[in-house]
């Protein structure tokens, strides 16, 4: 009891503070807000691949031109190195930058969201649509001069199936034919997976158990090919490999020159790089920065780039400096609150709908992102090709409507009591949210939400915990909460990514990704069909059907789908990003203007 009142008190204080701070900030930034918001309304999310470029003044004095290391392109990143630069053990976003510029994948997405050949000349899919055959380029060399062959490709994919593999990417190979046999053979009798066949030095084929459209994703930007002669280990002994995680020998445009844990990574040009377009920047440095001061570092010219900024205040600081170019694009993902569809009262679809109608998402988005985000009504990646204009027009939009929320709750049998809360069979209508603690954004949501829900007669209980405890709560315990908050990022323009595991009832089990515990027959059927449909136009129709169904069931409240802004010093040009194509994909096209 004491705890609850404490939380309520806290929320009350927060709401009060937010209301106050909201006022002053709004007054300060009105002009900027309307300006930025205008951009989204005009173009913004209608065409997701469209990037808003704002070029700055080249004549403004630029401190980066005179700094000691002005020949280097320095990228600031607040994430953090783990020193896992090889793709089988890569986990951190910062390490992934190094991996992408130092190694090459088989295929990748270009900045139009199309699949592009990297290490392959061509590939084809067999009649039964289960086998991919890749014809590799024969002019690719690793940075030590040894040629890249089909053996290296097979080696890279086999690492993830090794019995002793303890990294997090096993999902890439677990659907290949022969995975289980290879993975369970601890003695090392089985030398390779039957699903991976080396046909000759430059031809390799992969056979999947099922014919799915999404199988191709396992080759696009997924594994970056590692040379067997350098990373070689005995089957069942990934220990040898793990000792080399921080060592780099790849076929990408750059090679690792220096790695200082916790500080920076320095990259130098790989003279043996095979690409038609050669890298133009002599030195690339990724520097560890800190959220609170990184914009100042950019403005002081100590770093040249910051990617994925969302804070309007920081954008303003950079804009005022005068020499920072902006590249603004919709983020590939969203922040959300998922309902637990097994727990009362959110097991009732009308209650879920009422809770979405009853919360003023737009007010939150406007206050927090100052126009740099939108709300969304279906759990789909805003830049995916399945999120079509036709679909968006057909969706029920859950704009703030407390009256509608009230009537939905009345219909569901929750009647307003004398104390301002709703009751059904003597039970109070109360919603329990679990969320991550110490997150500025969530504090704002909680404040607004308790206020909004009070108006429609819903009592709100909030428990805050650290991320890891939250995961255990929603993935393993799966009870004692009605909603939980988190965010998601996607890496492909195919809407299928994660949909299957997040919404199919097959994954509604302890540890499973279907944390909403959502079970719906139509939904399951559509999800199964979706992954199999190879015809994109037909797939779009299926997505539409699926989206409309889930849009009505409402197992998720999507808080925001925001814009990211890459801030780049205007001496660096040639950059063309999108949400799934960042500087580390585009590095060979970028150059420093003297």
């Amino acid at each position, binding site marked *: 009891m004491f705890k609850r009142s404490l939380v309520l008190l806290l929320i009350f204080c927060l709401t009060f503070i937010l209301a106050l701070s909201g006022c002053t900030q709004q007054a300060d930034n009105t002009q900027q807000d309307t300006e930025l918001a205008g951009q989204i309304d005009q173009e913004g999310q209608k065409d997701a691949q469209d990037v808003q470029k704002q070029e700055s003044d080249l004549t403004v004095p630029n401190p980066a031109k005179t700094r000691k290391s002005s020949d280097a392109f320095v990228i600031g990143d607040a994430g953090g190195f783990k020193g896992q630069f090889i793709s089988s053990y890569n986990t951190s976003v910062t390490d992934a930058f190094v991996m992408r510029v130092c190694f090459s994948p088989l295929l990748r997405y270009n900045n139009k969201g199309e699949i592009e050949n990297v290490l392959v000349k061509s590939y084809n899919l067999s009649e039964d649509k289960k086998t991919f055959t890749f014809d590799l380029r024969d002019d690719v060399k690793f940075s030590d001069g040894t040629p890249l062959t089909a053996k290296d490709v097979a080696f890279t994919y086999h690492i993830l199936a090794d019995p002793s593999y303890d990294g997090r990417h096993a999902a890439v190979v677990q659907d290949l034919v022969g995975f289980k046999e290879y993975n369970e053979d601890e003695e090392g009798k089985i030398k390779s997976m039957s699903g991976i066949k080396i046909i000759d030095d430059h031809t390799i084929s992969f056979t999947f158990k099922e014919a799915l459209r999404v199988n191709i994703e396992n080759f696009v930007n997924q594994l970056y090919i590692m040379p067997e002669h350098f990373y070689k280990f005995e089957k069942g002994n990934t220990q040898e490999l793990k000792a080399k995680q921080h060592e780099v020998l790849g076929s990408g445009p750059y090679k690792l020159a220096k790695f200082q844990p916790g500080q920076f990574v320095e990259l130098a040009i790989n003279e043996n790089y095979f690409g038609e377009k050669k890298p133009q920047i002599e030195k690339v440095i990724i520097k*560890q*920065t800190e959220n609170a*001061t990184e914009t100042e570092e950019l403005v002081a010219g100590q770093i040249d780039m910051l990617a994925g900024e969302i804070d309007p205040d920081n954008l303003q600081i950079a804009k005022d400096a005068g020499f920072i170019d902006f590249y603004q694009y919709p983020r590939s993902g969203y922040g959300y609150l998922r309902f637990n569809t097994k727990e009362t009262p959110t097991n009732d679809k009308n209650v879920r709908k009422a809770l979405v109608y009853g919360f003023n998402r737009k007010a939150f988005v406007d206050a927090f992102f100052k126009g740099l985000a939108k709300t969304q009504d279906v759990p789909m990646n805003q830049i995916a090709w399945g999120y079509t204009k036709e679909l968006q027009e057909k969706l029920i939009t859950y704009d703030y409507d407390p009256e509608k929320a009230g009537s939905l709750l009345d219909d569901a049998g929750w009647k307003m009591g004398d104390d301002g809360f709703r009751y059904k069979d003597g039970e109070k209508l109360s919603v329990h949210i679990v969320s991550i603690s110490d997150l500025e954004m969530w504090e704002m949501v909680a404040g607004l939400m308790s206020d909004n829900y009070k108006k429609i007669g819903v009592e709100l209980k909030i428990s805050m915990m650290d991320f890891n405890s939250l995961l255990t709560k929603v993935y393993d315990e799966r009870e004692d909460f009605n909603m939980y908050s988190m965010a998601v990022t996607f890496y492909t323009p195919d809407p299928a990514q994660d949909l299957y595991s997040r919404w199919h009832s097959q994954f509604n089990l302890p540890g499973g990704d279907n944390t909403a515990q959502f079970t719906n027959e139509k939904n399951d059927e559509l999800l199964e069909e979706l992954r199999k449909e190879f015809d994109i136009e037909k797939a779009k129709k299926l997505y539409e059907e699926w989206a409309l169904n889930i849009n009505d069931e409402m197992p998720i409240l999507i808080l925001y789908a925001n814009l990211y802004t890459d801030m780049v010093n205007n001496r660096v040009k040639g950059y063309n990003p999108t949400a799934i194509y960042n500087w580390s994909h585009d590095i060979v096209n970028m150059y420093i203007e003297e």
Partner: protein
Amino acid sequence: MLKYIFRRLIQMIPVIIVISILLFCLVKAMPGDPVRAYLGVNSKVSPEIKEKLMSDLGLDQPMHIQYFMWLKRMANGDFGESIQYKRPVSEVVGDFLWNTFLLKIVVFILAFGISIPIGIICAVKQYSKTDNFWTVFSLIGISMPSFFFGLLLIFAFAVNFRLFPISGMVTPGTDYTGLEYVLDMAKHMVLPVTVLTISSLASLVRYIRNSMLEVVKQDYIRTARSKGLGEKIVIYKHAFRNALIPIVTLIGIWIPFLFTGSVITEKVFVWPGIGRVLYEGVIMRDYNLIMTLNMLFALLMLMGNLLQDIGYAIVDPRVKVE
């Protein structure tokens, strides 16, 4: 003396075992599990593979068995593998520990070097202007949050005056060697050292002042003065030696702090120290990393205690160790 040290070291063993049991229980009592944290959200890895990862780490065993497994490994000098870094813990923490030590040893020297004379002056001239100044200074220093103070310094000296770099330990991409390298690092150290020194200075000055005041009021000081000794000799020879005893306590307490990171200061200045690594280890439930570091800190604390006792014996002739 050697015998005494040896006996103390032997006595430490049961203490360490008790500490390790307590720590182990506390670490395991945290909700959340490391495999889930490592795999992340939407990993799509099948449940069988997850189970296999758990059993490979021995996390499916009962707690006491896990503890004995851990103890056995520790006894053989194997600190285990970090779950998130996938490398031996000793390799992961090495560099970071020394970076923290480098920062802290400078702070240690500066803090004691400044606070001892100031503490003495404040005690000798009690309630003077100097004394009042340092009282106010100490109050501000103690109550200033280091995050805020750090940012304040950054904005003043790094952003506005451009005297120092905003973050890091060295300037990347410069390839300095020798003296240039040392100077570059020194430049990066100025601000974090200032924050840490000022915040520790505050309490040290108060501590030394008070212990000195107690000594100054003793009868033998009055005797020394009345027999006509000069003020300097009274203070530095008669009073200071006795005031040193509490300072030895302080130094003993400080020894483990030389290695424990200051998460917030390191974060604000992007100093690649151990604080951040430990913090992330806790977030990720990286059991081996947390246990190793905390055991190390516990051990340092015990060593600090031992050094304290030896220090007493040196400065205080009344203390005899046998």
